[in-house]
């Protein structure tokens, strides 16, 4: 992830807020690759990711005055990106029914630690990325927010619109879906007593 030093970013943000186009250009150059990759991980197609990246930065530019400089710029950036991508997915109605609370009550099968360890050891990054796109939108989004954007459970709860206490459940279910996808089973079947 291409993230510049904190001091540089803070200074660039301050200049960009003052209307310095070059400073905005610097911020864009520094963060656009990471945001594009974020969009690529969360949205179904490359074209969607390209469009979303541009839209996120347009939104950011408009909202730059609202940014609280005492907090991390990249965290704020990812929150905006997460909201934008989640809105796109929600508009397309590809959020699945199992995001409702009752589904979280379905117990997950306890994995065999040794088998899980072996499965993880055998899989490559590329296989994981491939499997990730077979996941439901929310599961994929949760994993990306946590392991790509490094968001806290509170931030993930806020972005996904779930209670903070259920973020762990969402992440665990996402991992189960991912394991099933890695094993070649239907991701949609994940989350139950498989």
């Amino acid at each position, binding site marked *: 992830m291409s993230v510049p030093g904190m001091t540089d970013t803070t200074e660039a943000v301050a200049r960009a807020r003052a209307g310095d186009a070059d400073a905005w250009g610097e911020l864009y150059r520094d963060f656009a690759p990471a945001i594009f990759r974020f969009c690529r991980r969360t949205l179904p197609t490359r074209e969607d990711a390209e469009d979303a990246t541009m839209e996120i930065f347009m939104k950011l530019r408009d909202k730059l005055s609202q940014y609280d400089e005492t907090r991390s710029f990249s965290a704020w950036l990812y929150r905006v990106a997460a909201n934008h991508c989640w809105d796109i997915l929600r508009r397309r109605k590809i959020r699945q029914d199992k995001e409702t609370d009752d589904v979280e009550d379905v117990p997950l099968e306890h994995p065999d630690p040794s088998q899980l360890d072996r499965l993880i050891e055998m899989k490559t990054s590329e296989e994981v990325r491939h499997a990730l796109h077979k996941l439901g939108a929310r599961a994929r989004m949760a994993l990306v927010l946590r*392991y790509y954007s490094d968001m806290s459970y509170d931030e993930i709860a806020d972005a996904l619109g779930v209670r903070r206490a259920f973020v762990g459940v969402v992440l665990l279910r996402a991992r189960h879906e991912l394991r099933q996808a890695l094993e070649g089973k239907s991701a949609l079947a994940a989350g139950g007593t498989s």
Partner: protein
Amino acid sequence: MREPGSPVSQEGPDGTMDHLDEMTCLLYAERQLDRARAQTVSAHAQECASCRTLLRALDRESRLLTRALLEEDEPLPSRLAQFQERARQSFGWIWGVILGLAATGVYALYTGFVEPWEQRLEQAGFGGTSLLSLLIFQGAFWKGWQSVITLLEVLAMLTVAGFGVAVFRRRLRRGAALALVLAGLCAAFALPAPAGATEFHKGETYELAKDETVKSDIFVTGARARIDGTVDGDLFFFGQSIDISGHIKGDAIIFAQSVRVNGQIDGNIRSFANNLTITGTVARNVLTFNEVVNLDSAGKVEGSLTTFAQSVGIDGHLGRDLTAMAGETIISGTIDGEVRAKGRNMSIAPSAHVSGSIRYEGDNPASVAAGAKLASPVQFTKMRHKSRYTQGHYYVWRVIWTAAFVLFGMVLFLLLPKFAGETVRAGERFGAPVGLGVLVFFGVPIAAVIACVTVVGIPLGVLTLGLWLLALFCAEIVVGTVVGNWILGKPADTWGLIGRMAAGFVLVRIVYTPLADLHVIGALVALGIWIWGMGSIALALYNRLQPTASQGAIPGPLPPVAMPPHTTVGGIQPA
């Protein structure tokens, strides 16, 4: 409902020992447990090998996920290389202007050119079609297809199709969008009813004897043909000369050097020939592109005659109107309709009999013999050879056409940004594109015509010819972009390329327009642009078809991945 993360123990796989559940392990690994619970988990893990394995597996899973997600497997697309907001905003009004110009152009062209011609042709018996559709889409190969397609309509249709793809690509993958549009086009092409059975004859000479009858359409290629018998359908002829003394019950569509009609044709004649002589009877209309057209004194056309020729002679009987764009028009026979002619000279002999009005625009006044029977005097208009550069509408049209091509190019570049870049790069090499361009420019139409000689080759030939025409449209756009790159430097993204295309195209137009009037030089420059542009497209296609290195090539060593703090395994939540 159980509180997630509560350290509820679970029976182990062996049924003999309690273990931590997976949720608890995950929350512990992610440092989401409070101090007391974390200490409980930690103590248990020290005693239980199975739970330690699970914690280790979850930790490895977290690391695998982080690494997989953080790896830079795709570069930032070129169109995102720079922030585009300013460009998008500036292009907003350009889009508006171009779309407005294009819409105006389409409307103006239709009302000012296409519609009058359609009316004129409708009067001549070709209702609902335009000149270009007669030439291209209602020719021999496309008979029965009633599409009204003009040059600008083709351009407009392609542009609209491009917009369709651009809209769909937000919803679908690019391939799927293209497939959708192509499927739509294929469906559109498949809609016209297939032509009936056709007889094909190929050889040096063909002769249909007097007592022979062809019960279907007949398609003849060869040096000479003689039709003394009867054809129940249409006659198509490609060759040197044809003599029709028999009876054609359908239309006669002829591409030949010499055409002589002594017999009877119940339908229309559409001919592209050097000489056309009619001494027989044509029941409907005649449309010709010839050097010499002669309706002999014994000849009779019951419909109208529309001709583009060097010399037109009407000695026989014409049932309806004469529309002629000819150097010389001589009327000595009978015309029951009107005469509209444009050319250098017109002569009306004493034996002439014209029932309708005569409107003639030419260099010299019509020469009317004293004995000629005319319904009204000739309405003569002196043809003005005013320089078109002094006429305002000339510039308006130039702007409209330029805008239409820029719009077309923009749509193409947005649809195929990568291929557009490759084509322009190919164009920057001179030798290869020019050499290949000569081959494509001359070779492809010849190959397409040859392919059309065979039955199975007709669709292939027509499709090839269509693609060739498309490449011809695009050639000037490609050359304009190369010129734009020379002047403004290499673009950073697709919009930069589009900007250079627009600037270069306009420049090429400005330079080329005055040269176009210098006949030989203008033709050579146009030929050069076409060859260069088509060669670039062909070279880019050729490069695309070359085998490339496998996509699955082994990547270099992975860069070290910085682990986010929340994924650190084990430990208690900070107070």
